[in-house]
């Protein structure tokens, strides 16, 4: 039975490249890479690594970014869920979560950069009126040495991710009944949520939280845009060493990749320690039984912070749009001197190739992922048990830093003499698309009312036709949503495209990040908007298609 082979195949597809990539980073990190003349083990790469100027600072910023980004994002999400559930704000935010999640990291970072820079939109709005500044103040805000703007940019994107993961997990906990119980004991609503729902929710979103830590401590594209520069964060340094014409630096880059792995692991361990501490503090707080104190500040924080992050993301995006049509626009003017389509007209002729590549890669990776995930889930249904132990393996590509194993993977490819082509990049994207498609589809698949299939079986349907004619049509909406998530993940990938495509395969994301170095905000605005709108097309289709297809079936429309 071919279906039974699918779960091991998925494990092989995810774990194989990661392990091979890590191995090929580990060997050169200790001086072993015969192709480059390293045929004995040595500690020289490590000595060279710790001899790099500013290496400790790079590590400190990466480590802090991993923990601080996660702590703040998680706090914002939990506060929002506690303070706003059931309110109008709640419904509004829930509707915005998907588009925000589909906004590529790089586009969000560009938007933020233009918002908060000393010559950015915020200061333009109050200058020279309130500040008296005719010229931008000389303040180091974007690319600050402490990585604060980097963390802010990451938070904008991690909040929607954690929120979506929490919203998916919450129904299992039946929060309304828990809350009603606590309310009847006299707890105010926000406090009640924190005391009876949050402790049960956290274990369910622990893996996504770990994924955020890993991502924030090793991100490349956002760090290139918002991160410090003298020195850059560890992951960006590794990229620079890897691209150095002096090939001996590859040993240094490999040692750096292993160091990144260790750094992310220690950030995870530290978080695990903080979890214990937090649990202990929470226990004390819950046991004391306070019913009112802190309710108002918590509620205000819960509503205010999520509004702040959401608005920042959207205003940043809007300011990119304005930039993309701006003529000359100098500080402190809050509106450009004129509007022009010149920048769009310039970019349009170059859009075709990257757009085609982006679409081909995203559709290819998503389709492959969808087939594999559906096969795995269908297999699970037929053999009738949940392979929950394998779940952590799905998180492997999300928890092992990309930069740590992708370089090794490139070395493997160079050994095999594989030339860069779209297939290779699709395969690289699959590593990251597959987990997300699985995570977004699994719950809906498992929760589909079993009576549908029982009914179909009693009518004599074979397992095959049960899948094709009952489950698939019933699950069309979640399948399309999962595909949209997959497309969005693929469209946003920078490092796998850049490394496996050897720079020859350009997508809108690699183009946009390459232009980031250029700093021409108008052109960046055009590319970032194109990049941000692509995933939106996917999500719009995912919402619209079922409505269109089932327009003659009222029952199906209601379930959507």
């Amino acid at each position, binding site marked *: 039975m071919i279906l039974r082979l699918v779960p091991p195949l998925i494990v092989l597809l995810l774990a194989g490249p990661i392990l091979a990539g890590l191995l090929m980073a580990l060997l050169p990190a200790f001086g072993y890479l015969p192709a480059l003349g390293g045929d004995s083990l040595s500690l020289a790469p490590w000595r060279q690594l710790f001899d790099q100027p500013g290496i400790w600072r790079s590590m400190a910023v990466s480590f802090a970014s991993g923990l601080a980004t996660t702590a703040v994002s998680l706090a914002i999400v939990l506060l929002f869920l506690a303070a706003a559930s059931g309110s109008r704000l709640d419904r509004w935010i829930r509707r915005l979560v998907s588009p925000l999640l589909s906004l590529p990291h790089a586009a969000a970072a560009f938007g933020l950069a233009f918002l908060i820079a000393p010559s950015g939109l915020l200061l333009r709005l109050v200058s020279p009126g309130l500040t008296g500044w005719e010229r931008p103040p000389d303040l180091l805000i974007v690319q600050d040495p402490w990585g604060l703007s980097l963390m802010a940019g990451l938070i904008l994107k991690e909040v929607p991710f954690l929120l979506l993961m929490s919203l998916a997990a919450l129904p299992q906990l039946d929060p309304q009944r828990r809350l009603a119980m606590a309310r009847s004991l006299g707890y105010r609503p926000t406090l009640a949520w924190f005391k009876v729902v949050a402790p049960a929710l956290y274990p369910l979103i622990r893996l996504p939280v770990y994924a955020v830590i890993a991502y924030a401590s090793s991100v490349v594209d956002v760090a290139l845009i918002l991160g410090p520069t003298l020195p850059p964060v560890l992951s960006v340094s590794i990229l620079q060493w890897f691209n150095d014409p002096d090939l001996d630096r590859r040993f240094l880059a490999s040692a750096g990749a292993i160091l990144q792995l260790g750094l992310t692991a220690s950030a995870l361990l530290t978080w695990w320690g903080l979890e214990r501490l937090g649990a202990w503090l929470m226990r004390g707080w819950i046991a004391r039984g306070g019913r009112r104190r802190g309710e108002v500040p918590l509620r205000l924080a819960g509503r205010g912070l999520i509004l702040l992050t959401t608005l920042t993301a959207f205003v940043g995006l809007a300011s990119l749009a304005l930039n993309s049509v701006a003529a000359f626009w*100098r500080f402190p003017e809050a509106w450009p001197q004129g509007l022009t389509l010149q920048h769009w007209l310039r970019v349009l002729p170059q859009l075709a190739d990257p757009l085609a590549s982006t679409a081909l890669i995203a559709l290819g990776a998503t389709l492959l992922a969808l087939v594999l995930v559906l096969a795995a889930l269908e297999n699970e249904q037929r053999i009738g048990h949940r392979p929950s132990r394998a779940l952590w393996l799905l998180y492997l590509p999300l928890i092992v830093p990309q930069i740590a194993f992708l370089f090794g993977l490139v070395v493997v490819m160079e050994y095999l003499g594989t030339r860069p082509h779209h297939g290779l990049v699709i395969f690289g994207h699959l590593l990251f698309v597959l987990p997300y498609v699985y995570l977004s589809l699994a719950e809906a698949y498992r929760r589909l009312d079993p009576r549908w299939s029982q009914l179909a079986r009693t009518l004599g349907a074979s397992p095959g036709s049960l899948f094709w004619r009952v489950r698939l049509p019933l699950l069309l909406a979640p399948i399309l949503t999962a595909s949209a998530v997959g497309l969005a993940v693929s469209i946003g990938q920078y490092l796998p495209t850049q490394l496996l495509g050897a720079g020859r395969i350009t997508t809108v994301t690699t183009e946009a990040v390459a232009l980031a170095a250029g700093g021409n905000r108008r052109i960046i605005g055009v590319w970032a908007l194109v990049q941000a709108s692509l995933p939106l097309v996917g999500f719009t289709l995912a919402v619209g298609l079922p409505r269109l297809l089932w327009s003659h079936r009222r029952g199906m429309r209601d379930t959507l």
Partner: protein
Amino acid sequence: MFRSPLLLALGLVGLTSAQAAPDPHDWEAVLDEARGQQVFWYAWAGEERINDYIQWTADRVAERYDITLTHVKLGDTAEAVSRVLAERQAGNDERGNVDLIWINGENFATMKANDLLFGPWSEQLPHYPLTDPENSPAVRYDWTIPVDGLEAPWSSSQVVFYYDTALVDDHPRSMPELLDWARANPGDFTYARVPNFLGNAFITQAMLELAEETAPFYAPVEESDFDALTAPLWEFLDALHPHLWRGGRAFPANSAELRRLMGDGEIAIGLSFSTTEASGAIANFELPETVRTYVHDGGMIGNLSFLAIPYNAQHKAGAMVVADFLLSPEAQARKQDPVIWGSGTVLAMERLEEDERARFAQIDLGIATLPPEALGELLGQPHPSWVDALEAAWQRRYVGQ
């Protein structure tokens, strides 16, 4: 490795054509072989204008020579060098990915020293004599390294400063004056982050201007006392940095970001590796119309950039045809137009026909561009080994402080 006879056959065809490298002396044969080839040109892509110009080139060579030119966009030319090196390490000597590289200085020195270049070929290009090689040493020496026909000249550039006349009354004319000006106007000047080529150019310019004698800089760095010769440079930079934009704690990544800072009014003096950049940027709404260009009294450094073909390139004939097209008066004149790109030509005007010279004379250099006679003396680039040493010393001194 090959899975089917067809692939095997294709592989063999690839091998034989790669083994018989095209002979540049027989230009008709080169043109024949180039027809239908897809040339991968690895070129720095940090500037939209340059990318547009390369796209224009691709359209021209497609219609005239039936060559598909693909611009592989690089953030740093070193990536292309590293790719060719990696291919050789992996034993790929015949089917390299890189067909043509925009290159000079350090990267050329690395490739030449490692025998990674195809050639000699450039002196046989039909348009090569227009550069007047006998009388212009810049065409024959790339940062003091003999070119030996391994790369074709393409573009000439000179460092210039630009300043906003609305913010600066009297611009500095030397490095010591620049330091005085920065002290009086803190936060209004910066240069690109080393090792970006514009950052390297600034510290090299300062080194040449502040040194008592410059001869040692044109020989390998190992032959001199680096610390003693660069002491005036570090003393100057140590004094300058606290008065730079952001107090010298951050630097713009490259020329385009420097230009944006100027456009936003964050700085009042910047620098560029293109004498016409300011005029082009004004036309593109990136800089205010009050920006003008100036040079230091003691001269400014400049160099030529070239086009090279790796030893393992798969489409050498196509690459040569593209390089020759780029050397044509038509392509060179377009490149010099500040609205298109504004990068200097490598052709010698007296070698051109009347109508070709007219093409160049017609170009409107724009309001912010200095006339050629006002550009002053051109200082040559030091030996490439100096750049490596300067980069490392700068990083050690200013990174992570």
